[in-house]
């Protein structure tokens, strides 16, 4: 109920009806503020997603175009073909390898970070954040320069008498590039998880004659598990769909899922197959993300 006085002053009386209309008004306001982005994302995200789904059931015609009539699941069946399977397993394997290497490097680092004084810790964190958001293409390109013909890497291996190693255009180079690119994705959630742990619990485990390994295994690791899971997913998902890194550092024998999808669109012109593959990639991503949120992680 509202009473409007002669002046512009509004006197609001908190009756139940008034509360209700006020609430409704608030809800309308909230919706109005969300609406532009909502519509934008429906138009330029949800609908495109739907189009990919439709294309994945369509047929490629003889001219490299796509016939939308006559739906079928052929594109999905093709995933079982040996070539595709090889690429899928290779992508999976390299993504897992990247995740494990990141975990092994990042865990002690995140722990070390969390034991520093707050002022130092903040500076250290900023220097992890900077590569996190810095141009990914250029950071991968830097490795191309380092690993390249007669480059710094060769100099180092020669200096140590290890002979010349050809890393560039191999799977090792791709993993190196991926680790380099995604290591911050592992460090940040791990740090967030470890930082929250009460240090007294570790002290208690020491007091109870647990050695370092036992304290780690029985106290630190279980308590930091949400960070381990979050970081692993954040590294695994983009590694699985990586396209830029294998293009720059990989060779002919290192085609990964991401590059394979791009090939379907830009050169092979088999759009339904490419659409099916990207849909599978997205499904994997979605599954992992649901696990991530289930575990209560929210650290990006």
């Amino acid at each position, binding site marked *: 109920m509202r009473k409007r006085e002669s002046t512009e002053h509004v006197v609001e009386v908190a009756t139940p009806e008034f509360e209700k209309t006020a609430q409704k008004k608030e*809800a309308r306001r909230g919706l109005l503020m969300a609406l*532009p982005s909502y519509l934008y994302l429906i138009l*330029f995200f949800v609908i495109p997603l739907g189009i990919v789904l439709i294309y994945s059931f369509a047929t490629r015609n003889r001219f490299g175009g796509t016939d939308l009539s006559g739906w079928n699941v052929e594109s999905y069946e093709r995933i079982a073909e040996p070539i595709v399977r090889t690429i899928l397993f290779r992508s999976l394997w390299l993504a897992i390898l990247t995740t494990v290497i990141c975990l092994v490097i990042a865990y002690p680092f995140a722990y*070390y970070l969390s034991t520093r004084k707050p002022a130092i810790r903040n500076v250290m964190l900023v220097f992890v954040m900077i590569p996190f958001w810095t141009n990914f293409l250029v950071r991968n390109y830097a490795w191309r320069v380092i690993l390249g013909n007669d480059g710094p890497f060769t100099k180092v291996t020669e200096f140590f008498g290890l002979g010349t190693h050809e890393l560039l255009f191999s799977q090792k180079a791709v993993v190196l590039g991926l680790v380099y690119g995604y290591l911050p994705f592992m460090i940040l959630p791990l740090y967030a998880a470890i930082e929250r742990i009460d240090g007294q619990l570790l002290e208690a485990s020491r007091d109870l004659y647990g050695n370092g390994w036992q304290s780690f295994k029985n106290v630190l690791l279980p308590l930091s598990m949400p960070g381990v899971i979050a970081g692993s997913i954040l590294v695994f998902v983009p590694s699985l769909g990586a396209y830029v890194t294998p293009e720059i550092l990989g060779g002919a024998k290192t085609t990964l899922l991401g590059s394979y999808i791009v090939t379907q669109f830009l050169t092979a012109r088999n759009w339904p197959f490419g659409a099916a593959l990207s849909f599978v990639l997205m499904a994997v991503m979605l599954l992992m993300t649901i696990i991530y949120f289930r575990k209560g992680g929210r650290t990006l």
Partner: protein
Amino acid sequence: MSNAVEPRGLSKIGLQINGWLVYLFFYAPIVLLVIFSFSESRNVGKWGGFTLSWYEQFIDSSNARNALENSIKIAIVVTIISVILGTMSALALERFTFKGKRVFDALLYLPIIIPDVTMAVMLLLFFGEFFEILDNLFGLQLRKGFWSISISHIAFNISFVSVVVRARLAGMSTDLEEAAVDLYASRWKAFRHVTFPQILPGIAGGALLAMTLSLDDVVITQFVAGPGWTTLPVYVFGLIRKGVTPLINSISVIMLVSSMLLVGLSLLAERTRRGG
């Protein structure tokens, strides 16, 4: 960690060494790239005396300059629109309840977590269909270029801006806003004079982040760019695939430095306390 247990002995040394190695790993390649961009040698990874000629070549290359101009134009448009839409979504999600809020919340996260390649494919197919429909209905002959790239960048940047602004809003108590409203400020006035100044650092951080992501994107842009109309990263990516040249070194360093500068500023803005 509260009441951290200071690591001792061997494990302390191990942790310290690991820490230094991680930073070395992060920054050595960047430093080397910068050094080699000043090298006279035609071999990109070899030192051959100091020169600025690769930077001069960048300035002289009209292709590169065009691509840079395109990148900047797109980044400006994308930043402005993403900041407005992202901030509004953040406010809606943090300060209001409304129908469909949960769906909207989930939808906002999707562009962040979806693989680049999938999003690129989605938008490629979308613009193909969309332009065809426009052509059939209105006879409009649109081509991929400025607008298709901008629209795509905004589609993922709304989410990033809203995450940054939300983080700011979530850490802020509503006391002041409520006090303002109690003192007969209209909702708009309360926002303008109380909420907005407080979340400004978050908005600035989000803006710089959106700009960085727009300037850096390769995969999605490559799919929605038109013939003869590319951005600097897509141009560089094309060059790298043809074979590395010292020119790429110099362009890369320019991209790297501007990208790091923007990120640094963005982190600084987010860390600013009150009244920034």
